């Protein structure tokens, strides 16, 4: 049975799909969560008058947001280049 499956299934492509899906799916969710964390902590720190901490969270949130935007752009490029 496994020999038959190996014949008809492109195992390399399958492993690539699994790897890419895990990295992209978990990575984008993590990046977006960090963006929310950054934005929330930035607002809290600014309100508590901790400008340095607020600036740090602002940078963190911005970088994470940029990572999410990059992932969306990359996804659209993948769609457009589909062969």
């Amino acid at each position, binding site marked *: 049975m496994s020999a038959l499956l190996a014949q008809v299934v492109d195992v390399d*492509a399958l492993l690539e799909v699994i790897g890419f899906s895990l990295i992209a799916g978990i990575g984008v*969710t993590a990046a*977006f969560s960090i963006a929310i964390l950054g934005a929330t902590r930035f607002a809290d720190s600014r309100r508590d008058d901790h400008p340095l901490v607020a600036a740090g969270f602002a940078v963190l949130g911005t970088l994470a947001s940029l990572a999410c935007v990059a992932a969306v752009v990359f996804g659209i490029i993948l769609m457009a280049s*589909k062969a």
Partner: protein
Amino acid sequence: MEGDVILVIVVGTALAFDFTNGFHDTANVVATSISTRAMSPRLAVGFAAILNFVGAFISLEVAATVAKGIVDANLITTTIVFSGLIGAIAWNLATWYFGLPSSSSHALIGGVVGAAFVAEGAAAVNGDGLLGKVIVPAVIAPLLAFVVAGLAILTAYRIVGRLRPGPVTRGFKIGQVASGGMLALAHGTNDAQKTMGVIMLALIANGTLGADAAVPTWVVVSAAAAIALGTYMGGWRIIKTMGSRIIKMDSAQGFSAQGGGAAVILAASHFGYPLSTTQTISGGVMGAGAAKRVSAVRWGVAGNIVFAWILTLPASAAIGGLVYGFTRIFGADSAVGPIVVSAFVIVGVAAAFVRRVRRGPSLTAAEDPV
């Protein structure tokens, strides 16, 4: 002349299938956004319809024509394509009636396989292709999305778990607009092309176009318009199943399900591994729910969905085969068979819609929010 009549019927049927594809699969894209109130129902389906339309233009590679490598392309006739389409439409409408998400692509493949089998026998069907391109991915897609969405939501909870819930919920609702948009684009790119491929197959089989001809603009525009219109009409029963009957989800779960599903679909498309968008998103929804609490998933509903997945190929194949057998009564190349079947289908669908509308307002979006 006879061939041209069949061609017109096939093109019309292909666009009708495209409409049911959008109608049936709206839930994949919008259900979680509506369920978590990231978007209002009307806004969500309008947004999805526009992005499905745009998605159809993003890539015009029709190389991955439906059923390529699964049935012998040299044996395909316009009547086989027609019968396969009827099988797919019938299965899509049946699963919509029961509110079950199922794969439109598998329904189409099943319909064509069944019709080809009845027309030309087992030699017309490539068993290895069916196993490698349809059955194995059908098992892997939902499992992979389940795992990805499950790990994604656990990661999200770990990062934002100690924050105030208000900003977190608002943040993930905004994120759902983007993740839902990606899904709608991916759906338009993948599924509208299947209809374009079917219409091209019929045009080439009829001798209207050469084998190397580019996709005519009217084919692209009509396929894009049909799937967008179907999406806008929305299969509200399936939206309800996907959005709230499997699990009651929060916005972080909705984002994880959509993001995980989109990642799996894009990865599979890129590496040439055909997956069903419906099965992928359903798996993502279940994974996002089960990761939080296994008992949060209504496993009875999930079981019904899996049962529909298993039935999709054989049921649509059986309908496609029966339709082909019926049309052949009137002659293998006669237009009478497809005309009679089309008339039956139109009358049947109209009667079903009238019956549903008379039964109450559950067909309408405004009165049936998720």
